């Protein structure tokens, strides 16, 4: 095996780090606007989906303008949204490996009319299943009026606030429950507003 001097080794490491850093920065900054556009469109697409409007990413912006209102008082970037008949609240929390989130559309009695969940790095086939329509459908008809929705195993299907968990993804499902509790508390003021 060839031997290399310490100086060569140090310069090699520095050189490689510099090349990689420049390359990644260039790519990341030059592609940023395109990625941001995709993400924004996807967010609007998800919000529309909670109120039953399936659309492509290209058409999401236009339909969003028509169907969803951002309330005047809303201060944060990702606060709640209003639609004809209720309110859409964002959900944020932690799964097993990383952040999870979603949107919940609630009618005037705070009954769920639609839900969408997302995740960044949950295990494919297990925790990542929260992002499927099948899981989101389980929330429809449940109530957030007097207590938050709980995700648990052997859930009582007739209960107004219990949803069946996914086998093999207890930690992720606990995260969804925690997210519901947080949203329930954070948006308690909306219950009065929507009822007006």
């Amino acid at each position, binding site marked *: 095996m060839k031997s*290399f001097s310490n100086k060569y080794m140090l310069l*090699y490491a520095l050189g490689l780090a510099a090349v990689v850093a420049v390359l990644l920065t260039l790519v990341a900054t030059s592609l940023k606007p395109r*990625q941001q556009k*995709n993400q924004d469109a996807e967010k609007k697409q998800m919000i529309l989906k909670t109120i039953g409007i399936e659309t492509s990413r290209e058409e999401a912006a236009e339909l969003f303008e028509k169907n969803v209102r951002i309330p005047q008082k809303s201060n944060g970037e990702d606060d709640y949204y209003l639609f004809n008949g209720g309110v859409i609240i964002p959900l944020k929390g932690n799964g097993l490996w990383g952040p999870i989130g979603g949107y919940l559309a609630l009618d005037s009695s705070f009954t769920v009319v639609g839900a969408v969940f997302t995740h*960044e*790095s949950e295990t*494919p086939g297990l925790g990542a299943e929260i992002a499927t329509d099948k899981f989101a459908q389980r929330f429809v008809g449940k109530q957030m009026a007097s207590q938050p929705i709980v995700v648990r195993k052997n859930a009582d299907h007739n209960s107004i606030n219990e949803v069946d968990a996914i086998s093999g993804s207890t930690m992720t499902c606990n995260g969804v429950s925690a997210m519901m509790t947080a949203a329930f508390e954070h948006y308690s003021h909306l219950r009065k507003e929507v009822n007006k």
Partner: protein
Amino acid sequence: MKRIDLIKNPLSKDNPITVQVLGICSCLAVTAQLKPAVVMALSVTVVVALSNLIISLMRNTIPPRIRIIVQLVVVSTLVILVNQILMAFVYDVSKQLSVYVGLIITNCIVMGRLEAFAMSHGPVDSLLDGIGNGLGYGIILVILGFVRELFGRGTLWGYPIFEKLGLYNIGYENNGFIIMAPMALILVGIIIWIQRRNCEKS
């Protein structure tokens, strides 16, 4: 060694999972269903092939004492780069792939092949070796994904096959244990068993 063997051997008698016992961790994690197993198999194949090629081109300039770090830097740069480009141009594919990015970088097969093959062979051989090992890994993943999704969930590629066959009506129930990681390990064990038996015979 003939070049065709570089692709053929990892598929059976030099399989990265069942013979070299590399990449077990990710093969337990992503095979609960068939679809993620296939996506993971394809992404690992691309990454192993490309990183093998690049490291092979660089191999004479890399100081041995820092070679692992150099390999790691090349692999992670490659994966991040590919993910960034996918995110900008084919957003849907990148959504599918996003969870695998971390798993690919830490996949033992990638580092294992760089260290065992690319550091001492030419670029063309290394590229073929990468493709072969990626596919060999993929075969096992697909077998596991097929068995686990079919018997654990009664579906294939999300299609409810057992429900359509009416198996639930005659008392069949999904086996929840197959979805768990230990069952994947047991299945890998069974595949190794069958494979060793076949090798002894021939």
